[in-house]
């Protein structure tokens, strides 16, 4: 047809579900594109050899056994916090308070270590730490959950505000328990007696955390996908009206799920204080409560995929630091690369859900 009206070159339409290998091919292509793009930008802006930069990122993560285990520990902790927020997210309840919930769990652990060290045997202290930290995290999440269930308050703002309260509380106790006096920090707790230090595998300091988080990961996966609770969470998240219609008590599910979410955050705090650092600072959670949001979303709230996404985000973060020191670049440059990679990966979802059809010529069918 020789029409003179402007026909659009292409149009976008929704795809039917793609087979899994195609979706992964698209994601793989996106990652490759991201690396090529970052490479071009690196050589254009800094004049560095992009392969050297990538090499540095790789070495920064896997260069030595120690670096490898630090990496593993970081992945485990990020994954732990991500696992914590995921049940709430599946329920479309945006718990942005993981930072504070983990911090308050850490505070509870530290409190037990400091105040009970000379009163109870080591195993009893550890037991107290576990119970109080899980409980503290759960309460910290339970407060906003109660108000959401009862008065329909906005959980996003509420949980966010609870972070600041937690930070201030920890800041206060850092001064109360400061050691040495006048330093304003707690320092290593019980350095001599090692009371309250969680048991470790003799071979590897960080292996314990990795194992604990791996177990939690599998449990959360099973809980969300195969348990009645998990099913209720999904229904409440998708449609509250439908949930009420089949007799699910929505308020109960909201509070129960948030308590669980907070308790896992509390566990993260316990591991950070009792196993990794043996001290408490206001920045001990290190923004993981917020990075976890990204980890969980990128993995579409699937705990197993979250292993991959937390791996990706930790490597990118560590790599950014590594190239900053190694090439004398600004740390922000690492962040630019991280941004490019995330942009491509998130953007690829568009091509998984939609296809672009060329109006004329050989338009490929998805």
């Amino acid at each position, binding site marked *: 047809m020789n029409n003179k009206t402007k026909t659009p070159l292409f149009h976008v339409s*929704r795809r039917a579900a793609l087979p899994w290998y195609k979706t992964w091919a698209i994601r793989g292509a996106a990652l490759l594109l991201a690396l090529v793009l970052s490479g071009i930008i690196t050589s254009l802006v800094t004049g560095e050899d992009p392969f050297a930069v990538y090499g540095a990122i790789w070495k920064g993560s896997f260069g030595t056994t120690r670096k490898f285990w630090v990496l593993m520990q970081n992945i485990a902790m990020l994954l732990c916090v991500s696992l914590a927020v995921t049940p709430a997210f599946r329920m479309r309840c945006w718990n942005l308070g993981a930072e504070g919930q983990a911090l308050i769990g850490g505070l509870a652990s530290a409190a037990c270590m400091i105040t009970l060290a000379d009163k109870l045997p080591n195993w009893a202290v550890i037991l107290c730490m576990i119970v109080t930290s899980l409980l503290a995290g759960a309460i910290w999440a339970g407060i906003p959950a109660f108000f959401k269930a009862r008065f329909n308050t906005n959980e996003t703002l509420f949980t966010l505000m609870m972070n600041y309260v937690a930070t201030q509380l920890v800041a206060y106790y850092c001064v109360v328990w400061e050691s040495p006096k006048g330093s304003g920090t707690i320092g290593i707790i019980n350095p001599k007696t090692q009371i309250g230090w969680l048991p470790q595998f003799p071979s590897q300091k960080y292996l314990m955390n990795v194992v604990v988080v791996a177990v939690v990961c599998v449990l959360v996966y099973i809980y969300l996908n195969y348990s009645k609770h998990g099913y209720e969470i999904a229904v409440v998240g998708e*449609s509250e009206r439908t949930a009420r219609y089949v007799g699910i008590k929505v308020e109960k599910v909201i509070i129960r799920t948030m308590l669980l979410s907070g308790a896992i955050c509390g566990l993260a705090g316990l591991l950070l204080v009792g196993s990794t650092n043996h001290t408490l600072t206001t920045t001990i959670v290190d923004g993981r409560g917020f990075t976890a949001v990204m980890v969980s979303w990128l993995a579409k709230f699937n705990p197993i995929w979250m292993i991959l996404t937390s791996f990706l985000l930790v490597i990118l973060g560590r790599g950014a630091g590594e190239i900053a020191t190694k090439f004398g670049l600004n740390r922000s440059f690492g962040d630019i690369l991280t941004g490019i990679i995330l942009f491509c990966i998130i953007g690829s979802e568009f091509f998984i859900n939609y296809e672009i059809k060329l109006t004329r010529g050989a338009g490929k069918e998805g």
Partner: protein
Amino acid sequence: MDNKIAAVTMRNITKRFGPTLANDKVWLNIYRGEILALLGENGSGKTTLMNMLSGIYFPDEGEIAIDGKPVVIRSPKDAFALGIGMIHQHFKLVDVLTAAENIVLGLPGKLDLKAASKKIKEICDTYGFEVDPDQKIYDMSVSQKQTVEIVKVLYRGADILILDEPTAVLTPQETDKLFAVLRNMRDDGKAIVIITHKMHEVESLSDRVAILRHGQFIGDMPTKTTNAQEMTNMMVGHPVTLNIDRPEPVDPHPRIEVKDLTVRDIEGTVKLDHVSFTANSGEILGIAGISGSGQKELLEAIAGLQPVESGSIEYVDDSGKREQLIGKDPFAIQEMGVALSFVPEDRLGMGLVANMDLGNNMMLRSYRKGRGVFTNRKAPYKLAHQMVDFLEISTPSVETPVRRLSGGNVQKVLVGREIANAPSVLLTAYAVRGLDINSSYLIYDTINSQKMRGVAVIYVGEDLDVLLELSDRILVLCGGRVSGIVPGRGAKKREVGMMMTKLGGEADE
């Protein structure tokens, strides 16, 4: 008619959604001064075809010409520029604004409400609409809102109007009014397309019918030369009988007794006012009323979903034992055998989870039956398979999210699941809303077979003709009060229609 230039010519239109062929090389002409009824079963591609005309979708193949000139419609804005306006099933109005404000919303140029009101009045006078430009949308009835939608489209200069199932939400009287207006517009030389499932409307209103089946154009003809039976056969592809069975009730005895039921909504408005009736086992109790007369609240109160202010709802079991349902939680009521299949206007709002697949949606009723803390995932998927076969649900698989199914199939999933529980009371509202003939009859048959099993069926319907044919007794609601209960056999449509608008059906209140 053939020597006229068609207002719209659609040639060879093809549209695919993934592997599904929604429209397959469709040819369609729309003429000015004519009302065209577009017929077809659910999923036959009527709405898709019209959405391409109004710029919501873009065709994969084919051409559209307006008044003989080829055009490209990329967006609803393009469609408006060509004088095409579509009135959707779901109104797109801002509640807190007035009719006039809604009508001029989004138009370029200076906001001059006075001039707008004047123009609106002119349009109303020309075609016989009744719209108060200064009335707020939230104060309006469904029918008034629809009028505002139509005026909005006319205000923008549309002379090709597409109405997608406009009568689904109207009373018989309102439908008559709408049809009068549509005839006026036709006589004024506008091209009108109406999508509907109701045969008697096609026969009384349209000049020409065009029929689609499975995305393909089957044929068109002047309405005068055809009849409901022929059109139905063309739509379905094989002969269908158009009579709804009404077997005699089997051994009816009281199953649900409602006394002086009063319900207020959150704002404190009385939704049900001292409603009393008895629903018998083995009987279909039809509930008629203008939408929003308390049907929803009534069913939800019985199902335990709606807080009740006063009154009683008693469940009577086979041995005559009575149990009060008010105060019980929905799960306990469900366990007693009360099943509710309520098809809301958005179809997916209640009863189903849009993003879950068929199996998971079947599980909504049965997930508590799993062992220990785990759900039993096998049984619901088996049920889903049976349901797909039994109710002829067209779906790629039972692992498909229900939001991907067409409206009719979504309803089959919902109704099918509720019936699968072998209930003793079946509450169903708008079960055939928007369903095609074939599916509707399948649902009527299913409901009848439940009745024969001794189930007490409470059937809330919007098509009065069907209510009159299907129900053993009809309860008419008017503004939350019982306007009357009439036997289904021999009830007159006019009479019931009057009772819907005025308590008791008398001329004055």
